[in-house]
């Protein structure tokens, strides 16, 4: 199957995320900061999308909304057809546990737990029995190429390996989306490229990836780029063009 047909199939894929006219206000002392001023966005299954924008653009706030870490002040948010805006804390936790795989800039691994135990954590919160947990965590660690680092603790791993553990942890519950916040921000460019190759691989295997970044080269790996400015969507482009440009430049 050629890349083009795959992409066209994706375009008609099921809608995973559907946000309509979302706003988010923060009260900071006397002032009210309007972080999002009405954002609408649809993300389909097996899309690879980058969300870009300078700091203060509302990028982080949007990511928190998408990751169900926060609820909007107004607007409509449907995740797999379910209204997230009206969910309580426990329901949001369940969505985060099963539907969203987080990858953080600072990895956020539990420092005193082995790779295996780190990857098992979302399975514990999902109520999976210990045996299945071990099998699945081992399998996912093998998928990201860390079969020989299962019993290592984070401080015994390189930055790239730590981020791979974090990716494995994000994948282990077979989530609907992978939400990566500056996943290469704490890595050197070579290791960063390795992680981006891993994301490309995950995308090719059918995962939906949302990448939040301010780096053009990183965003260039995505198939679609959404730019935010002052709490509004500035542009929403599909295509490889920036990636080709940056590759040519480097």
């Amino acid at each position: 199957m050629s890349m083009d047909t795959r992409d066209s199939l994706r375009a008609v894929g099921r809608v995973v995320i559907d946000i309509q006219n979302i706003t988010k206000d923060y009260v900071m002392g006397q002032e009210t900061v309007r972080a999002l001023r009405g954002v609408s966005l649809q993300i389909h299954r097996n899309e690879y999308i980058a969300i870009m924008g300078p700091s203060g653009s509302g990028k982080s706030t949007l990511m928190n909304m998408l990751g169900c870490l926060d609820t909007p002040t107004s607007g409509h948010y449907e995740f797999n057809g379910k209204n997230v805006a009206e969910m309580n804390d426990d329901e949001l936790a369940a969505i985060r546990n099963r539907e969203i795989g987080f990858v953080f800039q600072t990895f956020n691994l539990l420092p005193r737990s082995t790779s295996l135990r780190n990857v098992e954590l979302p399975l514990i919160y999902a109520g999976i029995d210990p045996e299945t947990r071990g099998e699945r965590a081992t399998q996912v660690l093998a998928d990201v190429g860390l079969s020989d680092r299962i019993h290592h603790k984070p401080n015994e791993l390189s930055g790239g390996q730590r981020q791979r553990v974090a990716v494995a942890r994000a994948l282990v519950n077979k989530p609907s989306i992978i939400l990566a916040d500056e996943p290469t921000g704490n890595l050197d460019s070579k290791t960063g490229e390795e992680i981006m190759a891993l994301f490309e691989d995950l995308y090719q295997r059918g995962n939906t990836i949302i990448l939040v970044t301010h780096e053009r080269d990183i965003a260039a790996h995505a198939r679609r780029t959404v730019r935010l400015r002052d709490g509004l969507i500035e542009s929403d482009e599909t295509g490889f063009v920036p990636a080709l440009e940056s590759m040519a430049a480097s």
Partner: protein
Amino acid sequence: MKRFLYELSESGKIAVAQMRLNMTRSTLTALGVIIGIVAVTLMGTAIGGIQVGFDKSMSIFGDDVLYVGQWPWKNVDDWWNYRDRKKIKTEYADALNRMIAMTSNSNLTIAIPTSSVVRSVKYADNEVNNVLIRGTVSDYIITSTFDFKEGRFFNELESRGGANVCVVGYDVADALFPSASPIDKSVLINGQPFKIVGVISRQGSFLGLFSLDAIVVMPLPAFQKYFTAKSEAEVLVKVKDKTKLADAKDELAGLMRRVRGLPPEKRDDFSINEQQALKSTLDPIKNSIAIAGLFITGLSLFVGAIGIMNITFVSVKERTKEIGTRKALGARRRTILLQFLIESTALCLLGGFIGLSFSFLMCFLIGAAFPSFPIQFSSGLVLISMLVSVLTGLVSGFAPAWSASRLDPVTALRYE
């Protein structure tokens, strides 16, 4: 339910890991709980020990015997009302026995006169001080529960005739005749020789405080001949059926009023005592130990709980980012709550365990140093201290665990 168990075991593992990581901090924090548990277990041990020692000591007073005396066997606030009562006389026993014989269906069997003083007892160069010298009749043996190590009690003939014979307690025999048998030897009391006919087997001590074996029993006529000064008489009355002790007590009170010739409007000028009454004298002692113990326990547990609360708050603060990560990975509020509750509880259980080991060791040492002092370390105490530890952990951990569970995931994730 299954998820709860997995989360529980996960929290347990985290708690153990945290304690091992911060061993010094954990132990210091648990100090308050340690002291609290030591206080509560030592208190329990003391109360239990006193009770056991008391029950053991009580068994020599028959539970089917009433004791007629001038004073009640309890602490009285109005002692002046008792001080001026007429002395009890040994002759009352004869009067009582005559009346008992004339009463059909009497609840009483027999009245035994006794009279006692404290003197020293000598044999050759050995001397024992503070021995209870008691004069009575041969039927005394009916009201008592003791056995004989050697020899016998004095017989009726010796009793009536007032022969200079006596039966000695274990301590007296042991002190005066460390190697030889005391039977047929004569001891000197008040300068008078008394021939030993029997040795009472060991009775032990009352609460380990004073010996019940420092006693000499002799026939009443002989006693009255030499020891009238400062002697105190008491009449022992054996009850037919100990399940009807209250009836027997009423009957005896009636008989005593006749003996004393009291008009109906006058109150009893004597006291009828029973073994049970002695037990109630123990309650104030046990209560004061319990109050002191509970006060120390409560205070140290309170201080301990605050320490644990504080350290759990620190732990929550230190691990804010971890809490955020866990929430992002799907930990619900109750999962986080549970995790920190288990951490504080584990800390308290550690304290409880150390405290328990410490008091166990102390009881062992006290037991080794003073073998006669009754020590009672019960499994109930272990259970109570563990329960107290868990409760302290839950109470002290709740506020920090609650605050952790309410953390906003976005804020927590951004916390550095």
